[in-house]
């Protein structure tokens, strides 16, 4: 390589380094679309369908388990318990619980795929709580924090958002079998949560059954998400607002949005 060559290289560099050509307007449009709505989403769909159908089967299976297991769940759940508290004690718990459980089941048919998954998770999760003595206390702050309700619309949207995280689906399924355990402690449990929920704001809970389930749903979702997403800002957060239930936080890594009250 001669100096002449180097000179020529240098010349080309000098003239071309700052050379600019203005691109067509549609280039940015395409870029913007791609980074905010990655095409990769499409590839998750088949996986979601499989996961969803598995979850539907699991939740239906759980639905047919002996009532006792089912009963333990709602007491753990903020809204469900409160709903029953207002009316009565242990007696009707089963029926209202069944109602609660059936609601999600019907939602399955109408709402997005992942919903049953959420329900199942919600149903499953509370069963773990029995293992600690402080659980009523534990559930209480959780309830307070998880005071939310979601309108079916946002529910679907959020579920859609949540479904993009396959990780959320996996922990739920293995938890299925564990629900059998607490069956014995049913009686003890039933009472505790009731007391706990007595202290919480029953005013806000004196709402139509429909809204209650939404509350419970939001609370469920928050709990489920908390179990999976260990970050401070969850992938999605629900909070009760004046207008109703809504999403107040989303954290998808590259995109983070959070409402500050």
């Amino acid at each position, binding site marked *: *390589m001669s100096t*002449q*060559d180097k*000179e*020529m*290289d240098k*010349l*080309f*560099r000098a*003239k*071309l*380094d*700052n*050379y*600019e*050509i*203005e*691109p*067509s307007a549609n*280039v*940015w449009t*395409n*870029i*913007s679309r*791609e*980074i*905010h709505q990655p095409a990769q989403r499409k590839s998750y769909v088949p996986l979601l369908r499989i996961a969803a159908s598995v979850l539907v089967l699991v939740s239906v299976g759980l639905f047919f388990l002996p009532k006792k297991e089912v009963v333990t769940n709602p007491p753990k759940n903020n809204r469900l318990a409160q709903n029953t508290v207002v009316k009565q004690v242990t007696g009707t718990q089963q029926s209202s619980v069944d109602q609660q459980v059936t609601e999600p089941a019907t939602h399955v048919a109408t709402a997005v795929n992942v919903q049953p998954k959420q329900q199942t998770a919600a149903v499953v999760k509370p069963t773990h709580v029995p293992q600690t003595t402080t659980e009523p206390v534990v559930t209480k702050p959780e309830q307070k924090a998880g005071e939310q309700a979601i309108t079916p619309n946002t529910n679907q949207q959020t579920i859609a958002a949540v479904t993009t995280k396959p990780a959320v689906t996996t922990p739920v399924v293995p938890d299925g079998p564990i629900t059998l355990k607490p069956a014995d402690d049913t009686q003890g449990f039933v009472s505790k949560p009731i007391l706990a929920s007595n202290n919480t704001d029953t005013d806000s809970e004196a709402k139509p059954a429909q809204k209650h389930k939404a509350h419970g749903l939001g609370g469920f979702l928050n709990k489920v998400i908390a179990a999976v997403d260990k970050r401070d800002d969850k992938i999605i957060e629900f909070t009760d607002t004046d207008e109703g239930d809504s999403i107040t936080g989303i954290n998808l*890594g*590259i*995109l*983070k949005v959070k409402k500050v009250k």
Partner: protein
Amino acid sequence: MMFLKPKHITTDELISRSKAGDGKAQELLYKQFAGKMLAVCMRYATDRMEAEDMLQNGFIKMFQKLADYRGEGSFEGWVRRIMVHSSIEYYRKHHKMMQVVDMEESGYEQSVNPVAAENLDAKDLMALIQQLSPGYRMVFNLYALEGYSHREIAEIAGITEGASKSQLSRARSILKEQIEKMEGNRYEYAR
């Protein structure tokens, strides 16, 4: 047309806002470098349309990788590297192979006065580069303009170091010839 970003926003701020997903910041960041990067892509593309496709892919990749950018080194250099790699990848995907066509030797001595090219502007030089066969063009771009070594070029282009060297020297002699021709023509008209 030069892009002038709002005075009170620094590039660093645009970068961090873009990382956070701020659409407007992303657009401004794109606008700041798009012109230069399109010029880079033009060197690797066969035409303007292909260059814009390369530009699009390059920026998409850039925004996807933005989370990994920790501020080490020049941001423009970082974007440029992504653009170059993306352009070459695009080219290889859409063209069968890096054709190297040996142009006929004109036969006269190449004691070219490099200063002759001084009179040529960026547009002319760009045209000269685009006239080169893809293989020569790529090596010349990577070596003379991007500053990669022959070893790095061999890795990027999938050729041997020896091939990189010989293609570079061929590219250079062709360019010199073309410059001479251009200068000669210019001179003719100037009379």
